[in-house]
């Protein structure tokens, strides 16, 4: 029952990768924005990594309890769970020893198998788990680009009765007028 002393868990997982670089717009602003984001990412990656309690929380939220409950290790709530208490003690001991995150994860994988990690790793085929969604995103952007191009190149629909379509400034004037009257 020793580990029934107070434990505070801290929400979701941490990640250091920058993912919003695409928001930068142009020129000087873009350069500064990218620099700021890289700096922020570096800060994210470094901050809080030294504190054992924070590391315990961080690693504990990246692992699963192996009792079959399908819960994150630090969220397993079974009293008398055959696995989670021992695993938490092992994790605490490893963090106290100063083992690196990857070493702790490796030792857990060796002991409990790869399913002990709550997410695929960044090695080997596991990388595909992360690559595919972003590959799909870029593929989607590409497809949308093609669709937009084909739509823009499509000839304007003919108006019945042989009337010429309104275009240019005249069309804009009509639109503004129509919006004022109808766009509620």
């Amino acid at each position, binding site marked *: 029952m020793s580990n029934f002393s107070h434990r*505070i868990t801290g929400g979701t997982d941490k*990640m250091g990768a920058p993912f919003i670089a695409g928001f930068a717009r142009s020129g000087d602003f873009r350069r500064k924005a990218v620099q700021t984001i890289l700096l922020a990412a570096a800060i*994210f990656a470094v901050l809080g990594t030294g504190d054992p309690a924070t590391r315990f929380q961080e690693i504990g939220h990246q692992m699963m309890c192996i009792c079959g409950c399908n819960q994150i290790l630090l969220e397993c709530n079974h009293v008398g769970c055959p696995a989670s208490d021992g695993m938490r003690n092992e994790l605490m001991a490893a963090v106290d020893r100063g083992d690196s995150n990857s070493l702790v994860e490796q030792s857990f994988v060796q002991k409990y198998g790869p*399913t002990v990690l709550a997410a695929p790793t960044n090695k080997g085929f596991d990388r595909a*788990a992360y690559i*595919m969604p972003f590959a799909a995103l870029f593929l989607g952007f590409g497809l949308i680009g093609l669709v937009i191009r084909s739509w823009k*190149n*499509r000839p304007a629909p003919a108006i019945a009765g042989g009337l010429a379509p*309104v275009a240019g400034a005249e069309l804009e004037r009509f639109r503004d007028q129509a919006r004022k009257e109808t*766009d509620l």
Partner: protein
Amino acid sequence: MAEIGSFALLLALALSVYSFAAGIIALVFQRKQNPQLALAGGSIPRRTADSVSDEGSLTATLRRNSERIGETARRAGIATFIAVLLASVILVICAFHDDFSIAYIFHHSNRDLPGPYKFAVLWSGQEGSLLFWSLLLAAYGFVLRVRYKTDARLFAYASVIVASVQIFFLLLLNFAAHPFAIMQGSIPADGSGLNPLLQYPEMVIHPPMLYLGYVGFTVPFAFAMGALIMKYPGEKWIHITRRWTMVTWAFLTCGIFLGAHWAYSVLGWGGYWGWDPVENASLMPWLAGTAFLHSVMMQEKRGMLKMWNMWLVFATFWLAILGTFLTRSGIISSVHAFAQSSIGDWFAWFLLITLVAFAFFFFKNKSHLRSEHKLESLVSRESSFLFNNLLFILLTFTVLWGTWFPKISELVQGNKVTVSAPFYNRVAIPVALLLLILTAIGPLLAWRKTSLESLKRNFMWPTIGAIVTAIFLMATPQSWGSVFGLKPWKDIAYFYSLMAVSLSVLVTLTVASEFWRGGRVISRHTGQGMFASMVQLTHRNTRRYGGYIVHFGVVVVIIGLAGAAFNQDKEKEMGYGDKLAIGPYTLVCRSYTQDDSPNYESEWAMLDVYKGDKQIGTMTPVRRFYHASQQTSTMPDIRSTLNDDLYVVFEGVNQDNGHPILRAHLNPLVMWIWMGVWIMLIGTVLALVPNAPAPVRVPAQARLEPAHAAPVATGD
């Protein structure tokens, strides 16, 4: 009773097969008789039928009588509903009569089970839930066939598609998962009982809502498929199915969040969403269905994205079936998959057949689905819908990919991996934030083209509001609780939370500005007050403004989700008078004891809750041991406020001293999630209300000459 139930199921199958076969025969021969009329969506005049030459064969007879055959098919479809309803009622009666000669009742009920849960037995296990699915599908089919006069021919096609899906489920019920299967050997005195996790009030309404959502997507799919097969002219089928789709979407939304609330209230781990395959199975059709609800507007307004919409509506239906396949086949392990069996093969074949059939008709008739208009500008409502759809589909793909990845990994590298919350947090949250940005921008864009000037003008104040909010949240002290004192550089989770809350403010302000601008125009013209003008505005275009209210509901949900970054929990063994402090609260153990009832025995603790020095209430978390199933379940006690939830779980008892072991969670902003869902549902209901007629005011000097008239963009 079991025999009557079995017979009703067999009869339902026969009626469905007849409805399907006779429906096809009627449609084929009507088409041969008069292809022009068939395309126009009208019914066959008797004169035309009589004029068909008498070929003296069955074919000629069928041609002559095709309309009557079609009518018998429709009635058989209606009768299917009655037969399935009879089977369902019999199963429920058997549950109330404790008829343990039926294996299903034995496995999912017991004598002391409270009445509402005996009713819920219908959907608590594999066979019963399939029967319930079949019942809901038959009910949807019933409504569809009763309302056939809206467009007899299109409805006849849709009826055949619904009958084909119905046949699949009735085949399953009759030959693979029979709910009236009889127990072998002697009849037991009592049943095994219902899974304790299902003995919670929400489980009486959560599955029906979820199933109404899953099954309901069959209807828009059936209309889409019918329109595709018959090359239905125009977009009328979309107008017909719009309400079906929205109602179905609302049911699925309600079902998903009821499930989340149930998980939160029963499972005792302090969370509401675990990215479990069963949860993902419900999210995928919801995401695809949401994408469809948006993109279908492009088809209605501009005649664009016709092919894409066909695939979207098919994908939504297909993902609903795929979800069922996932949860019942055992192919992917899940703690929530209550009913696993070997019926996975049936589902796999059904999925394959529907995919092939849809692809066949799509490629055969896709020339009919060409877009009618061109894109005039990237800064337009059309392009925002394109990107909206891309992100929704990307989220759907991410969830699908994450759900299947353990299986794919096993096939490729020989070992399973776990794909849980950390994966989805890394991949799905950034995409969801991008979607939130689009939700803010989209409503400000006009159809066809928006000038950058007007976009800048409309977007400036909401953007300033969002930036001010972000700065305020970072500058305030953390002691204010919830999302205050957010330091995004401390943790990526904080960064996500800050982005989510700020973008939510952005969306809220853009939605508010839409109401404000429209209300101001009406107020100016009518002299009414601002609020009355906004009410009138909403009533004039319920779909648009109901949709905005749904968007507002979504941001309220997102603010609630953002609170998860600040969750805390503590665990402690507590004797009399022991204290546990968490956040601003202190729990003091006043008592702990045991209780007994016919269905279960319970252990509970009584805790006084203090905020500062003031006692603000008492909490009694309970743990139950169910006699029939010999299983344990926790009933957390939750004290909800707008700021946070204090969530206390009775985890167990120290066997040495009898002290209860309690875990307290402090979960900020959870109530916002449930409030947001209500707002989403109110918005959906509002969007279903018919528009009030708007007075037409055309100043004489503004009238256009007919030769200069051009289509103009209006909002929706």
